[in-house]
């Protein structure tokens, strides 16, 4: 997986060069420089995260893959309901929060079961 780490890092170098060019060309354009520079930093960070993940994956070789995860679907739907509740009213936020609670509990249960099976 080490060769994969080079991909986001190389990409971050490309972006950093382009951001530096923008900075030289247009030093007063702070927001534009921050956006492009931020993307370069983000790409570099994802490269480092990948390198870190690679080390952990070699340490922990097996994991259980879920076939079904109703809790995940519930969580995603709950997040959407809460967000729409900001417009529709507090009643919908409460319903979304309830679903979110069920989703989190279900996910914890799924993860525990998975760990037991490993």
């Amino acid at each position: 997986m080490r060769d994969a780490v080079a991909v986001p890092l190389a990409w971050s170098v490309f972006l950093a060069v382009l951001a530096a060019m923008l900075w030289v060309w247009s030093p007063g354009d702070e927001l534009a420089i921050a956006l492009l520079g931020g993307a370069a930093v983000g790409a570099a960070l994802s490269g480092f995260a990948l390198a870190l993940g690679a080390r952990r994956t070699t340490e922990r070789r097996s994991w259980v893959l879920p076939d079904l995860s109703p809790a995940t679907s519930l969580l995603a739907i709950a997040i959407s309901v809460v967000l729409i509740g900001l417009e529709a009213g507090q009643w919908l936020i409460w319903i979304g929060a309830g679903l979110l609670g069920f989703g989190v509990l279900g996910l914890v249960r799924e993860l525990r079961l998975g760990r037991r099976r490993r």
Partner: protein
Amino acid sequence: MTTVEHPSRAASAQRAIVIEAFAGTDHKRVAQRLAVTAFLFFLAAGVMALLMRSELAEPGMQLVSRNTYNQLFTMHGSLMIYVAITPLALALGVYFAPLQVGAAEIFAPRLALAGYWLLLAGGLTMCSGFLTSHGAARVGWTAFDPLSNSVNTQGTGMDLWIFGVILAAAGGTVLAICVLGTILARRAPGMSMFRIPVFSWSMVVTCLMVVMSFPVLVLAMALLYADRRFGGVFNGTGGAVAYQHLFWFYGHPVVYVMFFPFVGVVAEVVATFSGKRFFGYRAIVLSLLLFAAISMSVWAHHMFATGQVRNQYFSLTSMLLVLPAGIEYFDMIATMIGGAIVLRTPMLFAVGFLIQFLVGGLSGIFVASPPLDYHVHDTFVVVAHFHYTLFAGSVFALFAAVYYWFPKVTGRMLGEGLGKLQFWLVVVGANVTFLPMFFLGHDGMVRRIADYSPGTGWQHLNEVATLGSYVIGVSMVVFLVNVFRSLRHGRAAGNDPWAGHSLEWATTSPPPRHNFDRLPPIRSFAPLLDLREHRRPEQATT
């Protein structure tokens, strides 16, 4: 002897199907659900386009009110970009990237499932604006501030649109993380980065762009909502320009998110149907990485007319895009040269993509030049340009992908006759619709208008464009007939009906839950072609 199924067993089987559809984490099922959902949004957005074209066919208001027309063009663009073409591109990655790199499963399958639900919720939330008293959002898919603030655009439809965009962008981001993680961290033994197929490389750069740019859209939408609710976020000229920077930092990369996966598809199709190894593999990989990086730095060419950006820099980077694009075109054409080309439907669509996209790409060079952009800004020239890239380009490649991979996904071949009929209808429809728009725009017809004066002389070209859009509509009906007929009566495909080059053709059609029972040796980016070339000399000697 006939077997009678016990009613309770049938009921439990039905229940299992429902639960699987709701919560199944298999990447292939998630991708299928995503593709079907996105295609339904695509059809809905297409119907809106037909309504708009019908309205524009003649001067005067015939079909819809001006307010409804504004909602139609806003929702057409929004559905197409946020919840149709982008998710369709990602769905291809979710399904085929794990197969191409020899992975048993996608990285973080629960996250992929969540991504699907967020995207679906995003699309439905956007559309729910039609049910509100003020109607759906009506400020264009870009929602520029101050047009989109609470003073100029009242009603909950606009707020629902903002939430829909946030959900869709969040869904797209998590799906991209899953695909990227799979390619970078879940590859089969022997599958080094320089052995992954071109399509998977195109997904790597696509997902990098998604991960870096989509969160900025979420931020822009959150700020827009705060501005509408509390005010004081995007104030004055500076605020309007700041919003545009944030929006276009997503808005331009997303064009490439809807392009790179399809370049990858066309590369696979061209190599397979030319019976040749892809030409210039390393060159296209490096050009994709460079292309993606440069295309992250061109966003402000959409803002030339504001007078608030450094035009020279953004014009230069926009022009630089022709270099990697040229390498890709060169590689694909060189792959075909000297090949045993078989013109089946996927190849027709792939060649169609190369020709049609060229029109969009070349007209892009003109609008990347500030003086020319000032002339055509906000006219139908721009509409023609991006429809040549997104419809006449990406959608052609999308159909190449559908005809190419349908046998792998379903185990059945799509009908060739109907496929070719659809191809020619789309060629005629796309060009008859979008080519007149260049002339209309050059003549001064601005975009986003519901009506024009009879004295402008634009009626004939608008009639032609409307006729073309109906032909596109007919082509979609032909496609749907082909899909439903083939699902029932299509010829069985077998594992590798096209003599493909990459690993997805080494497994059954459709693939099992764990993707592969065994993998062939991986010594290049075309392991199945290696296997065939290795066998041939042996067969000759025995």
